């Protein structure tokens, strides 16, 4: 595959195709519609399933159905549509079927607007639906990373029989950038041990999220939690730059992290010991690495395109060791490096005026 200029939404779609997605179900919503449109063209060409559903509710339940049949299945939407899908997320998590969902986030709450936002962080990382679980959430900051994480999303979904979100925003969805697709994976049959394919020569398989007997449901939850603990312990991912000697580390995911990178580089040119930490997994949050950094730095500055959501995870990871401050824009306003630089400079000056940390 060659490097080509690709729009984020199209790259996400084609990367899913390369990863062997056999069924896509979706509903148009800005700013992710190009993903659906690309699937509408490509999936039938490849003899794979595409349905434009009557709603996001129907779309996620179609995904649930196809996933029950043991194939790689996905949908994509943007914030208001993700809210509608929450019912399905909960059933999917309870039933332990692998599904991938792309959220190209836009400004909220309500109908909000169609500009880029990161305000679905709580929704996606805490509990995307009722009940006691977390979904895996992967946050790319570039078109290439969107492609790479799309493949990883399907692998993790299959490995853990779990729901995986790819968390983008309107900017990544609409941006064109050079990127390279992976080779097309062959379609392979998976999950014959539990998938619904017809009880031919075996006992029937049943997929249900219903457990009326409380101890049974408690046992199911404990099994889920055991799985989530393994995911929590083994799947934390992050990237960082210029953190070795940093006194101040900026923490941002996705687009906010990428924009902050330019501000951090500017601050370095001005002689400030500033680094960048960018979580790639939002759940599990990369707390191991961040708490190690908390031993080293004097403060964290969290930058988000919301009013402060991931900051709660940063505070938990920092464990009260260092101050955690916040800079954010919301409502679809994308921060520019200049304003993040100002926030870095102001905080850095404050740190300088304090006695150094032991």
């Amino acid at each position, binding site marked *: 595959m060659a490097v080509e200029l690709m729009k984020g939404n199209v790259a996400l779609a084609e990367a899913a195709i390369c990863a062997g997605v*056999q*069924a896509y*179900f979706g509903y148009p919503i800005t700013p992710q519609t190009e993903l659906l449109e690309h699937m509408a063209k490509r999936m039938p060409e490849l003899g794979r*399933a595409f*349905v434009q*559903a*009557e*709603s996001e*509710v*129907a*779309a996620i*339940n*179609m*995904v*649930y*159905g*196809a*996933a*029950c*049949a043991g*194939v790689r*299945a996905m949908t994509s939407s943007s914030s208001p549509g993700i809210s509608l899908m929450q*019912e*399905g997320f909960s*059933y999917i998590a309870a*039933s332990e079927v692998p599904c991938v969902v792309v959220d190209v986030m836009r400004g909220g709450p309500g109908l909000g607007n169609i500009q880029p936002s990161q305000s679905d962080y709580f929704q996606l990382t805490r509990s995307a639906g009722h009940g006691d679980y977390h979904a895996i959430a992967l946050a790319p900051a570039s078109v290439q990373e969107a492609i790479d994480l799309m493949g990883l999303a399907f692998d993790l979904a299959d490995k853990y029989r779990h729901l995986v979100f790819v968390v983008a925003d309107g900017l990544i969805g609409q941006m064109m950038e050079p990127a390279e697709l992976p080779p097309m994976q062959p379609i392979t049959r998976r999950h014959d041990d539990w998938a*619904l*394919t*017809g*009880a*031919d*020569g075996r006992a*029937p*398989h*049943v*997929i*249900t*999220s*219903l457990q009326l007997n409380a101890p049974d449901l408690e046992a199911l939850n404990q099994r889920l939690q055991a799985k989530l603990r393994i995911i929590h312990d083994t799947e934390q991912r992050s990237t960082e730059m210029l953190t070795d000697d940093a006194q101040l580390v900026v923490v941002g995911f996705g687009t906010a992290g990428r924009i902050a990178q330019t501000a951090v580089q500017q601050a370095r040119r001005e002689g400030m010991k500033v680094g960048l930490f960018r979580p790639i997994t939002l759940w599990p949050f990369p707390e191991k690495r961040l708490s190690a950094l908390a031993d080293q730095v004097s403060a964290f500055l969290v930058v988000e395109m919301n009013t402060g959501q991931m900051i709660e995870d940063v505070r938990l990871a920092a464990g009260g060791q260092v101050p955690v401050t916040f800079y954010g824009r919301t409502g679809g306003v994308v921060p520019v490096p200049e304003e993040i630089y100002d926030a870095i400079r102001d905080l850095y000056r404050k740190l300088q005026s304090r006695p150094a940390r032991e």
Partner: protein
Amino acid sequence: MTISAVEEKVVYQRPESLSDVPTHYCPGCTHGIAHRLVAEVLDELGVRERTIGIAPVGCSVFAYKYFNVDSAVAAHGRAPAMATGIKRVLPDRVVFTYQGDGDLAAIGLAEIVHAATRGENITTIFINNAIYGMTGGQMAPTTLPGQHTTSSPGGRDIEITGFPVRMAELLAGLTGTAYVARRSLHNVKEINRAKKAIRTAFETQLAGLGFAMVELLSSCPTNWHLSPPEALQWIEDYMVPYYPLSDYKVIEPVQDLMKR
């Protein structure tokens, strides 16, 4: 003790497509009859091993325990969407949904209408008993005018609640449907007619002709506060006049199937 001297002839037995377990249905409830009819048809068509059933939310939520086929339980009303997902990736399997009136005609109206209008090649068995059974007898979208339920305690007042939904007629109006019929389970003759319709609905799918639904008027003695025989009589006296038994949509290739 051996009775081999007596010549035995099996005249009635459990279809292979029904699991050998007691159901949780109330005495006199016709879900059991509907289950048996579906199971007999799956046996007769020889498709049990490649059938996938989708249970609803409602009294028949445990249908997956009773049908001896691969099954899933959908979220309330979403069985047609789930069935769409399965059928689209496994087109050679037989996929059916089994849904009640709250599930199909209220919360899942969008999903059934769109599965039908897309002409999804699936089969839907729709149990209309004019009430929410599992939650204890509330008004359903198919509750008759004047009918007493726990959420229409003075009788369903159409001035306030509007009118019951006639699903067979509604879906028959969609170009995408291939076969839509309404039958009843209140006596032997109608049960036999119901089975034929169920068979046609599955044959429609096997022939790749598109969406088929059989609506079955069904009893709920518990929540109607009637004895089982009274409940069957109530279907005949009150439900059948409001929900006429008929074939509402039979596209020509399905008519040909029925002649065979």
